[in-house]
């Protein structure tokens, strides 16, 4: 790969494509110009919508056009990319080219989240650049307001505290939505990532709500011939799954009206605009919501807690049998079709230098190196955020990323139309989940995972 000689990267421009998120924007706005200043290698990062990002990256890798030198790898899609041999083994590439190994870069620095991006040979196929949990955010100013607390106590007979159960969460949501109506405020009791035509809603249900009812890994059982239906040993349409759906839809109905068109991004802006008293919010947005007054109306008024759970779910998570919520994140990987692999190896190491992590953690609520937890400003923000980073470090093990399914996208595309019909009320939740379970088994049979 290495051409040799001086000025080997003269005129090289690295191109990457990623979703427009706070961590990615830091790469394009801060790390890329710094890298160019040092090396002269230009780095152009396209930050676009989630849908466009996948479309562009996959088309480039399938066609072998070599447009991109780096693509965003979300934790949930990396298994499909590895199965198709799209990516360069970064560990092996650096071993082959020790002259490109940067001082300060060490795979051992990464948190265990990096293990999501390792192949069967243990090699790392991407540089982790974001990692966060989907947390329960609540408004401390509202929860601590004496008038509100007294009214809540009078109505419910209990203290106003962050919910530990779904019943408590619903009670708080109902209270604040009514409070907003009675006081003519643009305030509702909860957020809901309930878009009727975008997979963000599918994800909220399967990754953040169903697990809190004890339905894990989308209710599919790989060890039961990839069953999804209860009839065949799956759980996608179990009583627990139906209870989770019913509860979530009832929360959606208490959420601000924009929730039916909200992805993860709009949920964050809804919360930042002060329109919800509580909600499940992607942690990549937590820091700016809590600290950046150029974007948020609730600076200094944000608390963090564990998601509400049914009985037994925490025990499942503690034992490794289950999990309490979503641990998401992504890496930058290098397509094997990249024409600038040496330069890309340099930039991917640059992103993992310990000295660039502190500012990045503040900008994007993300931590991928163990040492970042101890950085002074990270600890300051941790205090302002009610311990979000501490939760990520100490309790991250209770959360889980997407299941290791190479058929991730195909299954979502097959079942999402039915899911949207549930959201729009065209299908009852129970009937809809029955249909989704049957459709899942049909798709998994068609893909060759499930045998009749």
């Amino acid at each position: 790969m290495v051409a040799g000689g001086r000025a080997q990267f003269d005129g090289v421009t690295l191109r990457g494509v990623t979703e427009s998120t706070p961590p990615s924007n830091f790469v394009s706005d801060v790390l890329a110009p710094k890298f160019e200043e040092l090396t002269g290698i230009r780095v152009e990062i396209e930050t676009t919508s989630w849908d466009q990002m996948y479309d562009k990256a996959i088309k480039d890798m399938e066609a072998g056009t070599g447009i991109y030198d780096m693509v965003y790898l979300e934790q949930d899609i990396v298994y499909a990319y590895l199965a198709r041999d799209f990516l360069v083994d970064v560990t092996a590439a650096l071993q082959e080219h020790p002259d490109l190994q940067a001082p300060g870069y060490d795979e051992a620095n990464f948190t265990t989240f990096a293990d999501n991006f390792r192949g069967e040979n243990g090699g790392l196929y991407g540089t982790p650049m974001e990692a966060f949990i989907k947390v329960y955010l609540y408004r401390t100013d509202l929860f601590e307001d004496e008038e509100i607390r007294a009214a809540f106590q009078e109505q419910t007979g209990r203290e106003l505290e962050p919910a530990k159960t779904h019943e408590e969460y619903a009670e708080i949501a109902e209270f604040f939505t009514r409070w907003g109506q009675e006081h003519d405020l643009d305030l509702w009791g909860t957020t809901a990532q309930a878009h009727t035509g975008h997979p963000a809603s599918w994800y909220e249900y399967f990754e953040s709500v169903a697990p809190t009812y004890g339905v894990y890994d989308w209710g599919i059982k790989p060890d039961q011939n990839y069953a999804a239906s209860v009839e065949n040993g799956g759980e996608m349409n179990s009583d627990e799954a139906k209870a989770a759906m019913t509860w979530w839809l009832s929360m959606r109905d208490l959420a601000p009206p924009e929730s039916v068109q909200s992805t993860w991004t709009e949920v964050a802006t809804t919360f930042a605009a002060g329109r919800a008293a509580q909600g499940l919010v992607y942690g990549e947005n937590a820091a700016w919501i809590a600290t950046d007054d150029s974007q948020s109306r609730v600076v200094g008024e944000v608390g963090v807690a564990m998601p509400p759970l049914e009985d037994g779910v925490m025990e499942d998570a503690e034992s490794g049998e289950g999990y309490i919520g979503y641990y998401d994140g992504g890496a930058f990987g290098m397509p094997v079709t990249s024409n600038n692999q040496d330069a890309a190896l340099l930039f991917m190491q640059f992103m993992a230098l310990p000295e660039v992590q502190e500012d990045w953690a503040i900008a994007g609520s993300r931590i991928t190196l163990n040492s970042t937890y101890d950085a002074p400003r990270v600890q300051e923000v941790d205090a302002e955020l009610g311990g979000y980073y501490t939760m990520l470090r100490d309790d991250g093990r209770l959360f889980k990323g997407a299941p290791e399914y190479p058929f991730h996208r195909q299954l979502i595309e097959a079942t999402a139309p039915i899911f949207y019909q549930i959201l729009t009320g065209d299908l009852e939740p129970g009937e809809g989940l029955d249909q989704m379970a049957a459709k899942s088994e049909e798709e998994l049979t068609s893909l060759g995972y499930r045998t009749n």
Partner: protein
Amino acid sequence: MTISLKAGSSALALSLLASTALAQDLQIENAEWWQEAARSSTA
């Protein structure tokens, strides 16, 4: 219904300025290695 965030064009401009300043302020240890890596295959 309106969502009135504080972020407007001026806030965006300030954000971009802050980003530029941040890139300049970022202190990279072993900066010389990075400069050399770009010029030579034997960094």
